[in-house]
């Protein structure tokens, strides 16, 4: 029995390592400074993904700016005051949203924002990502706050602290690192999303720092390069994938490090 499970564990780990290894092998040769700063050159002459990196960064930033405050606040509400029918509904909706395929979110934003605006934009892309982010952050925030022991709250209440103070300066600080973890993981998640950006942000071959225009992103750019006809672009796709995977891996490692057991 032990051998069987050990074998499965090895297999699972091996798959991941093989994928990462293969990506690295394929993509490492195309990495360079120019790669990171240039824009793609027309007709398969190579170039870089600088604009894609910038675009991803901008849309992730927008999504976080909207999604994190709303998500954390909702999580706090659910944990502290949401033990009623209303809270149950919110919880159910959040859980459902998490399970919705992200392309549907993309289509929703397309209908709601892109069509009235008349064009795709970074704004729409950011909003789509925000909608994906919010339920994740809400639920992890709620879980983290629920992990704060009831005894700690009681200790504060017994000293004559009103409920809001207990939430604000005892519970939240205690749950802070957990909430931060949830936030970072949700950022890592949306960084890897492709489908919602397809209809909303589209893509672009140029640097674009305005939210009301189509914006490039790492994920969509990879898709385009990989499915295009040019070999050079295929190579760039591998390199970009390597970069993306590296970034997500990095975020995960940082989160693990910061939340290691200190005592």
């Amino acid at each position, binding site marked *: 029995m032990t051998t069987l499970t050990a074998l499965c564990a090895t297999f699972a780990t091996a798959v991941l390592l093989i994928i990462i290894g293969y990506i690295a092998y394929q993509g490492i040769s195309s990495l360079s400074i120019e790669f990171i700063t240039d824009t793609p050159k027309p007709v398969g002459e190579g170039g870089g993904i600088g604009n894609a990196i910038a675009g991803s960064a901008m849309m992730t930033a927008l999504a976080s700016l909207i999604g994190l405050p709303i998500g954390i606040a909702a999580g706090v509400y659910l944990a502290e005051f949401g033990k009623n029918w209303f809270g149950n509904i919110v919880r159910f909706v959040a859980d459902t949203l998490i399970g919705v395929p992200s392309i549907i979110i993309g289509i929703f934003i397309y209908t709601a924002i892109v069509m009235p605006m008349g064009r795709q934009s970074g704004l729409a892309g950011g909003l789509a990502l925000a909608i994906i982010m919010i339920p994740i952050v809400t639920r992890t925030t709620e879980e983290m706050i629920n992990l704060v*022991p009831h005894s*700690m709250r009681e*200790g504060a209440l*017994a000293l004559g*602290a009103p409920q809001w103070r207990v939430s604000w300066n005892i519970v939240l600080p205690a749950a802070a690192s957990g909430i931060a973890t949830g936030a970072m993981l949700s950022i890592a998640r949306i960084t890897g999303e492709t489908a919602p950006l397809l209809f909303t942000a589209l893509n672009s071959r140029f640097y674009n720092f305005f939210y009301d225009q189509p914006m490039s992103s790492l994920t969509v750019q990879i898709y385009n390069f990989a499915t295009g006809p040019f070999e050079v672009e295929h190579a760039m796709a591998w390199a970009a994938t390597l970069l993306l995977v590296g970034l997500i891996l990095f975020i995960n490692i940082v989160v693990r490090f910061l939340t290691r057991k200190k005592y």
Partner: protein
Amino acid sequence: MESKISISDLNFFYGKEQALFDIALEIPHREVVAFIGPSGCGKSTFLRTLNRMNDTIPIAKVSGTVMIDGENIYAPGTDVVALRRKVGMVFQKSNPFPKSIFENVAYGIRINNIHSSKTDLSNRVEKALRDAALWDEVKDRLTTSAFGLSGGQQQRLCIARALAVQPEVILMDEPASALDPIATQKIEELVVELKRQYTIVIVTHNMQQAARVSDRTAFFMLGKLIEYNPTQKMFQNPDEKLTEDYITGRFG
């Protein structure tokens, strides 16, 4: 002299389950009263009605009166926050905040705005730690985390934290049950010392502890008050057979 706390006709329900039946009791000023009884007899529930900590349980219902210094704490419009400042509580498992030792003790002072200046705050923290017999052990590491203390020290820290807001009554819910014998002894010594200034009610499942530290003892069973007498009488010649059976270990 009027009692510090005067309870009458107290009934308590968790939803439909009745947990306390017609409790009536007088707790005198500056004495230690111990509540003893088998597990589940309602002694902790009763303790928590004295500072309305049961309010945090949605299905809890209380009827009857609890008068502290002549005022019914269950009257509508009672300032529960002020009540909890006057009636402090120490819990079974010590629950320091994830802050430094100094900040733990200072917390209650800060939120109730008791202090007049930074120096005043420091002085109050020091006094509380001295009164809890912890000052000498922590005076050189006030800024370190409270979790670095041993179990017994953490419990004394929680006592210091409660003392810092200058209560008049201290409720203790099995304060030593998670501690080793030496730490337990220190807590007991502290209780005897504290009763000079405070009225203390202590719930304990260890009746020898009740015998050692209390002036009066109340014995509960299945939510009812069976006997309430001076401790000397309770442990040498109780009125009720049930009490005698419990104290001699024949059940429970």
